């Protein structure tokens, strides 16, 4: 299966999880990754710079109407919802909060599911609310692959647990194994 994009939702405990994730993903990891991290409306982009400095991949804030390119990691800006259009560009909105969150994981995931159908991987990591559960369901309905962090290994167990309770997730794994799986299924040639 040739996956074209990965969407990740992460909330409390997310900084640490993302640091680990980006230290493990190799430089040649080319499938674009799009992330909603719940974050305060007034936070600046300093943390993205820090994350980018420590990572093998190029990490940036998603811009309005920007085209999604291979090899990039995009993060939803604070205080905006991030959506993906059918032509694989980003839209931003300031619609009401969803699940008390803006950006909301559900908003990104639902639009990504429609845009990428079965070429999408959806991942829910640590967090202490249930944003992302509806989005994961939608990804599955559209034929995408779903992965949740094993709640027992997550800093905050509630968010992945909520997904697991609501649906039959394809994989439930600790973070390290999620990364290994991603490398395996998106870059099969490297393993032959």
């Amino acid at each position, binding site marked *: 299966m040739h996956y074209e994009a990965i969407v990740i939702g992460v909330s409390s405990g997310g900084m640490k999880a993302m640091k680990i994730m980006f230290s493990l993903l190799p430089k040649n990891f080319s499938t674009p990754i799009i992330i909603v991290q719940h974050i305060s409306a007034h936070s600046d982009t300093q943390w993205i710079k820090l994350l980018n400095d420590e990572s093998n991949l190029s990490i940036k804030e998603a*811009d*309005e*109407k920007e085209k999604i390119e291979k090899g990039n990691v995009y993060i939803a*800006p604070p205080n*905006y919802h991030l*959506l*993906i*259009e*059918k032509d694989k560009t980003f*839209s*931003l*909105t*300031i*619609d*009401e909060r969803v699940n008390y969150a803006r950006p909301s994981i559900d*908003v990104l995931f*639902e*639009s990504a599911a*429609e*845009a990428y159908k079965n070429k999408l991987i959806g991942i829910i990591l640590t967090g202490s609310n249930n944003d992302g559960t509806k989005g994961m369901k939608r990804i599955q309905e559209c034929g995408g692959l779903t992965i949740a962090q094993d709640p027992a290994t997550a800093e905050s167990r509630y968010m992945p647990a909520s997904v697991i309770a609501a649906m039959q997730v394809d994989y439930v794994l600790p973070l390290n194994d999620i990364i290994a799986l991603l490398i395996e299924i998106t870059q099969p040639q490297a393993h032959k």
Partner: protein
Amino acid sequence: MRDIDTTELEISLLLEAVYQKYGYDFRQYSEAHIKRRIMNSRAMSGLENISQMQSKVLNDEAFASKLLQDLSITVTEMFRDPAFYRSIRENVIPVLKTYPFIKIWHAGCSTGQEAYSMAIIMQEEGLYDRTTIYATDFNQLALSHAKEGIFSNSMMKEYTTNYQLSGGKESFSGYYTSSYDNVIMNQSLKKNIVWANHNLVTDSVFAEVQLILCRNVLIYFNRNLQNKVQRLFYDSLVNGGILCLGSKESLRFTDLNEDYTEVDKKQRIYKKDY
């Protein structure tokens, strides 16, 4: 049979019906956004599919106005993005001061918070008596709310913080009177604001102004429509006039990128070239 997504076809037919019957043109709004709003409206309405919504829109005016409300996002704040207003004070006010009469256009003013914020700044800078603020939106309900100038008391804490962060030095509570759960903005702020219904997609230039603020409206439009509306702004600005966009909007992807000079890149403030 052609390979067409039924939902998408239904959405485009619904938008066509809204446009032909009521004149509101959402056909070039961001598709993912419109789809999300329509799916939500459908779920709330209890109707089975979007085709049923289309029939109801055409025959039931109350349902149609409800849908129009659902498609118009009126989320706003006073002094939203305080750093932006600080830049207005520092970089834009000196330009405005050079004009004997100042005309400002807030396009997509929603319930008015942005226009009242601007009126406060103009008053503090001693310019308000020679200023007219045109505040426009296509959402009549939002406009009526704006005109009343009555806001929930519960928002004032956030607005006050924003005001202070934006460089405001007065007591913010001096700009309104509280009564029970609400506040009402001072008449002295309202007096030079002209509220008007204007649709950026279907209406044309209505005044020549020195400053346009259109924040968090264009993000809802596709690139083609953004270009069209940017042309309207360009034609409405005097030479040397100032255009302010939302913190995530820019001229970068538009045809008019070369016709403006950046005043404050981060705060998305641009000056029309002479």
